[in-house]
């Protein structure tokens, strides 16, 4: 067990709760390693698991000469104004996590990006799972309750999933209603590799816009994106995920559960089946509880005979019949509605360690307790 994070003075108690909500455990219990960045300062970076490195970005680039070939390789520097902003930084921050060949972490690594001031927080992350390695990460991003206008988070993440390796990356966001967030991520998945990307946002945010891509270029590689979000009034969440299937047996699943109670949610998805023997499914289910917009844009693109791609999208309200079914068992209307919503958001992710599924469930449970 690595030592406790002891340099996090200055984080108010309410923000500690927000970090816990994002799956971050400051005592490090149940975590094999930890990276903690407060604004632009790395306050903690450690890992007790043999075979897994957790390093600040700059230090990692100094330590491993070869790493420079992995930086800005999947996400182009000039992709947009946010990538350019990060690329121009003289002191780049962020983390590098490398799971060496055959390593395996039962307890996840936690990466905490905490925004405590009104400023732009920028990070560049590189995550590598070498051949036969299994790496689980929970990335908790949160801003302080006192952060007012103008805060923003720009994050570049590049994932490399080696042969028969696995990376699960679970992002739980607890931003404030004045924060803008622009993650830019991409992954390469080699033969027999699995990339799981999970995104949970139950709390208000001013704007989030992302469209990560998984390039499944190895035979029998797998990519699964799961998103569970609630759009509150004033929030705009433009969330996409893309899978490019370019090797036989490659498959992808893109699942979204979106609820709005006044916010705008754009749920994009794109699966491209480029060779024979590929398979993909895209699913977006949206509930409009009160006002708000859910705009689902599923795209499936088959380029050859022998790719099987499907999509399912549904946006609507909770059926009266379902609410009354539960009421007939004795739940009042409010409880019946909350029980149905909780079920709607209950996405069980295959291959995710229990600890991370519990973090996801707990973020949703907290939203349930506050009446969604």
């Amino acid at each position, binding site marked *: 067990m690595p030592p406790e994070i002891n340099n996090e003075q200055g984080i108010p108690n309410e923000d500690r709760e927000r970090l816990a909500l994002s799956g971050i455990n400051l005592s490090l219990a149940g975590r094999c390693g930890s990276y903690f960045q407060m604004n632009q300062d790395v306050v903690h970076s450690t890992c007790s698991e043999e075979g897994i490195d957790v390093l600040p970005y700059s230090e990692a680039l100094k330590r491993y000469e070869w790493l420079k070939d992995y930086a800005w390789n999947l996400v182009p520097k000039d992709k947009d104004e946010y990538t350019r902003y990060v690329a121009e930084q003289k002191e780049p921050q962020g983390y590098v996590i490398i799971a060496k060949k055959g390593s395996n972490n039962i307890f996840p690594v936690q990466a905490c990006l905490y925004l405590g001031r009104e400023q732009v927080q920028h990070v560049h992350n590189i995550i590598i799972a070498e051949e036969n390695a299994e790496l689980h990460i929970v990335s908790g991003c949160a801003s302080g309750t006192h952060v007012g206008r103008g805060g923003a988070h720009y994050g570049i993440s590049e994932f490399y999933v080696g042969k028969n390796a696995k990376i699960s990356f679970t992002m739980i966001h607890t931003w404030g209603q004045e924060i803008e967030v622009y993650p830019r991520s991409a992954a390469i998945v080699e033969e027999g590799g699995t990339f799981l990307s999970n995104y949970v946002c139950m709390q208000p945010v001013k704007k989030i816009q992302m469209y990560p891509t998984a390039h499944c270029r190895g035979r029998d590689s797998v990519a699964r994106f799961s998103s569970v979000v609630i759009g509150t009034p004033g929030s705009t969440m433009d969330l996409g995920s893309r899978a490019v299937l370019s090797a036989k047996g490659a498959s992808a699943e893109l699942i979204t*559960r979106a609820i709005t109670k006044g916010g705008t949610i754009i749920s994009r998805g794109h699966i491209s089946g480029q060779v024979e023997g590929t398979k993909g499914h895209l699913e977006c*289910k949206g509930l409009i509880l009160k006002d708000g917009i859910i705009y689902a844009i599923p795209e499936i693109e088959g380029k050859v005979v022998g790719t099987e791609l499907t999509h399912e999208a549904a946006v609507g309200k909770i*059926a*009266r*019949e*379902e609410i*009354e*079914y*539960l*009421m*007939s*068992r*004795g*739940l*009042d*209307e409010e*409880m*019946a509605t909350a*029980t*149905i919503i*909780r*079920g*709607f*958001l*209950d*996405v069980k992710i295959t291959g995710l360690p229990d600890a991370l599924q519990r973090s996801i469930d707990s973020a949703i449970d907290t939203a349930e307790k506050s009446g969604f």
Partner: protein
Amino acid sequence: MLEISDLHVEVGGKEILHDINLNIRDGETHVLMGPNGSGKSTLLMAIMGFSTFNIREGTIRFKGEDVTQMPVHERALRGMGIMFQRPPTISGLKLGKLLAATSKKKEDEILALARTVNMDQFLSRDINRGFSGGEIKRSEILQLMMQNPDFVMLDEPESGVDLENIHLLGARIGNLLEKEVQIVNRKKSGLIITHTGYILDYVDANIGHVMCDGEIKCHGSPREILKEIKERGYKECLECRQK
């Protein structure tokens, strides 16, 4: 237990039930028969208070209290329970979670009860998603067992159920209706819709009613009515009674 007077019910602006009068006393189980589309399920849904079923006239009294305009859950909390013929599928909501939310029982108690109706393997499945006819009925009876209502409404409990499971379901329904309790001491009441009458082997049904075109046309011994219907069909049964 239940007293229905001059009840008129409409669905989508059309009157389906006309002038229904029905009195079910404590400890009594009544059986409702009638051709498809005659309004039997509508009556059960109206008694439970579902919003699609609009009460135009008349009253429903339950345990002496007027519940005609009462919300569904208030009726459930007062002791009404219903087994649906076609319950909705609720995406993501696990049967086990629903039972925990409605019964407040502990996980091991739920599991033990689920085992008695062979539903322990279904607790982690979305409610009613991909359930067979028999599984739906077993899920419904399990929910009723948790609820333990004083007045049980069953909409075709034997339809789509194989013979082995009819026995299992019938036994549980018998328990819910206190079949093992002496008639004089029996408190639980029931209203059961049946086409086949198989369920009559498992409950003590006191009175049968035949519903046609939204009206209760006749009353009598459940087995005698069933025998007549089997022999002559609903049309003759109805004509006979109208003479």
